């Protein structure tokens, strides 16, 4: 039984960040939960701000495209859900035809994600967390921007220890792992918006 848990307070969204000139990790205990605290370098802070600004723009485009489609009712059939999802994906992919890997996960942002995951997976729960992530997560060859999330691969488990320190996403978006890549997924469209390199230790 795992009784300890890691929380990295990045302050990317929660305002808990302490600006620092060098990366640092420390540990604070809250009850039985162990929380290493990461402070951001100015470069990481800027990368996180840029990531969130791009997300904001993307969400605006997403909502505009979605508003132009027929609304799904609460009594939708699987066919209606699928049709809507694919139509939205096609529309968004066309609008961002020039998108490329790293638009969101810029090198400093990817570095921050990697450092975050390293810290999460350095705690006492590391083995369990990694097993959760890799559970039903075979990865995918030739992952491409604007591809549909592969239909034959389950949506991977995102342990709360991993989700919590990452920048919070609007309801339209999710993080998922495909293999060791962290994918930024448009969940309404099942569209791969961006993905990192191998960031999982």
């Amino acid at each position, binding site marked *: 039984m*795992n009784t300890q848990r890691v929380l990295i307070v990045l302050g990317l969204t929660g305002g808990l960040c302490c600006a620092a000139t060098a990366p640092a990790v420390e540990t604070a205990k809250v009850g039985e939960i162990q929380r290493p605290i990461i402070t951001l370098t100015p470069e990481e802070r800027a990368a996180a701000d840029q990531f969130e600004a791009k997300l904001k723009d993307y969400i605006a485009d997403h909502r505009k495209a979605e508003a132009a489609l027929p609304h799904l*009712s609460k009594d939708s059939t699987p066919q209606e*859900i699928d049709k809507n999802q694919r139509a939205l994906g096609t529309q968004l992919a066309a609008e961002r035809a020039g998108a490329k890997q790293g638009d969101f996960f810029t090198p400093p942002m990817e570095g921050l994600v990697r450092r975050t995951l390293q810290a999460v997976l350095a705690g006492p729960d590391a083995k369990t967390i990694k097993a959760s992530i890799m559970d039903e997560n075979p990865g995918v060859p030739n992952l491409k921007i604007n591809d549909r999330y592969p239909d034959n691969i389950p949506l991977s488990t995102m342990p709360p220890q991993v989700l919590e320190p990452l920048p919070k996403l609007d309801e339209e978006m999710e993080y998922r792992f495909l293999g060791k890549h962290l994918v930024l997924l448009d*969940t309404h469209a*099942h569209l791969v918006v961006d993905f990192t390199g191998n960031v999982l230790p």
Partner: protein
Amino acid sequence: MRSRQLLPIGFLAALLALACPGGTVQPTSGPAEVLAKGTQEAPIPLPNAKGSLKFVVLGDFGVADRRQYSLGAEMSRFHDTFPFDTVVLVGDNLYGAERPQDFKTKFEDPYKPLLDKNVKFMGALGNHDAREQRFYKLFNMDGKLYYSFKAPSESVRFFMLDSTYPVPDQIAWLEKELADSKEDWKIACFHHPIYSSGGRHGSDLKLRETLEPLFIKYNVSVAFTGHDHFYERIKPQHGIVYYVVGSGGQLAIGDIAKGSPLTAKGFDTDNVFLAVEIQGDKMYFNAISTPGTVIDSGIIERRKPEPS
């Protein structure tokens, strides 16, 4: 090993439970009291009383394999003698692809006999579920990621949560819903267990930090969860009884930590659904495996507000 038994009169069931060799009366350890528990050899029957609330809990099922279909067939057979209205889902409704044909093979086909009998399935999302499932008519989620509903009989309200993303808006909503609820029974249903003896996932401590204070404050009596692929009934925690019912499809055989101090009853060698009946202040439960064997049973009394 005996199969389940059904008795028409509730109080007889309680009496039988207290008298049967496996039944034990436990001291009160918090407001939700486990009045009695059965054994596989001497299970406590469900009263099957007229007018009571009858429902089934199912989790982690949508794999379209033989195990899922076999358990679905047993649920249908069980419905012939115990006519439940509702199946409460605790997430991971569809694994892998979610194309229209997957809704059919992973949900509509295995539970067709129940759907044909107008049994209502109430969805909650697990970590493998796409959010669009909330629009699917047969999951009755009203287009919402989290929602509550009043049971068709008895004074019971279910709170269906999205535990993958317990965002502040949802938690604020939950607190208001719990505070406003006038029902005697408040039952929380969500995917990630905040108490579990699973080696693969185990207790979600962060979620526990968020949810448990609300459950305690607002008199939640029972919580149904999934995620870990087995059946486990947890010893009452702060007066609340937690179940893990992630046993509807793929199994994690041998995953329950041996000797876990949390476990009241654990079972990880076959698929299981949980049949529940609420009558007044008592909740009767039978956990039933694919061959129709009752592997866990008992009676719980609901939590009541502390006298002011």
